[in-house]
């Protein structure tokens, strides 16, 4: 007799818990205000990343195509996995002294872990984080970038 009741109470509890679960999912089904899905490629125009978002490391250039990097190599030393290579060059300045400037600031985006040590430790605030996240490419070599723009020079008074 006991097992008889147990059999039916099990069925009753099973149906009850099923209905409770269904009521939760059903509520979301009928409340379209709670839809969270974002339509990514369609909303691309007004998709705003947070201002601190770390998409890629960039070198900050001003309107005159000038940057603040003097090629000291502190970012390269601080990078935990060698994503940054600084190739310095020597040029002769206006006063006749040779000084160290940057030739190429090479950045391996495919290796970067966005730990932020390079940006944090840069003494002249030459580096920053870009908001770009659409980096997917077909060719791995495209992920190695030169951060200083062609023809750019250092802002006077920074070095």
């Amino acid at each position, binding site marked *: 007799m006991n097992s008889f009741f147990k059999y039916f109470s099990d069925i009753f509890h099973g149906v009850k818990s099923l209905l409770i679960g269904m009521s939760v999912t059903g509520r979301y089904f009928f409340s379209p205000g709670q839809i969270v899905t974002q339509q990514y490629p369609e909303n691309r125009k007004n998709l705003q990343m*947070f201002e601190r978002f770390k998409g890629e490391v960039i070198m900050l250039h001003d309107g005159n195509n000038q940057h603040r990097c003097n090629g000291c190599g502190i970012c390269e030393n601080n990078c935990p996995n060698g994503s940054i290579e600084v190739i310095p060059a020597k040029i002769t300045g206006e006063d006749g002294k040779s000084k160290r400037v940057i030739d190429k600031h090479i950045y391996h985006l495919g290796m970067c872990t966005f*730990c932020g040590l390079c940006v944090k430790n840069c003494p002249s605030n030459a580096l920053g984080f870009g908001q770009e996240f659409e980096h997917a490419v077909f060719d791995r070599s495209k992920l190695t970038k030169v951060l200083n723009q062609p023809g750019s020079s250092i802002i006077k008074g920074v070095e």
Partner: protein
Amino acid sequence: MKEIINLPVSNIEEEEYHINMGPQHPSTHGVLRLLVSLQGEMVRSLKPHCGYIHRGIEKMCEKDTYPQVIHLTDRIDYLSAHINNHAVCLLVEKALEVDVPERVRYIRTIMDELARIQSHQLWWSSFGMDLGGLTCFFYGLRDREMILDIWEETTGSRFLQSYNCPGGVMQDIHPNFQKKVHAFLKTFKKKIKDYDRILSGNVIFENRSQGVGILSKEDAISYGVTGPSGRGSGWSCDVRKTEPYSMYGKVQFNEVLRYECDTYSRYMVRMQEMHESMNIIEQLIDNIPEGEHSAKMKAVIKLPAGEYFQRVESARGELGLFVVSDGNKTPYRMKFRTPSFSNLSVLDHISRGMKIADLVAIGASLDLVIPDIDR
């Protein structure tokens, strides 16, 4: 044909099947390989084979400076990345006797608890999915996105933030931080009731988890099963209580203990812990003191020669960090005592005699993160 019929019956009963679960299997949560010996459907024994994601982090740490180690500890247990970083920072600060500002302690504690909540949310999603409830997967990950948004606004990354650094945190919290955390707490308190309604009270779920994978308290201690899995066996092993660090000594919270010792009790501990974490955050979030977000540290951090040990409570259990320093800027030896590694060792013991379908539930209830095992 004749030979087959004449086979003695006992032979069939003793016949053992060996099944390879993994390294690519949806319910091993990564690349764990379990070599399971079965008798029929019953698990006789199993042998975990690790190392499919062994990346040699301990060796790499010996070449990195202390601030650089942070980006590696992120990737050990990526779901409690912030807590792992916290351990490194606490160890360095303890060794150098740096006094971090009060504000940093608050921020770190809040971040730790957010990490714990999101880790448990993800665990809840995958636990439900392993037992056949796909709804859990969607609901858990949906609510987790709110925490990721909070983090992204402050730290710039979604979940591997590298936000802690020795002496403090990388940057101050975003002005919206408190507002967003409040909004999250308010929403999540409603959503967590849904979690209970979907899974905790479900008859199928209860039948599949109650009485499955019994782990006694003695075994938990002997195997070193810490964290929610150990507390599900009634072992009070919360480092936040036994050795309080940061703000944990000053906030009021309960250590969640359950005594059923089965999969269900490990499940309930984690559900309760989310409530406790919210409780901790609520106590701290409005009282974050003003001040610096980082203490003054030397440019090159060198630990005095010696041996240091730091324990923290990560989302999976006790994370121990053992560092031997010889006075250089890089650690001489860095050992991570990761919770999942010890938790994995008990899997063989508690799944013997269970059905193979229960093995999935037991494995999920231990909340294994495979890079945490392999390092």
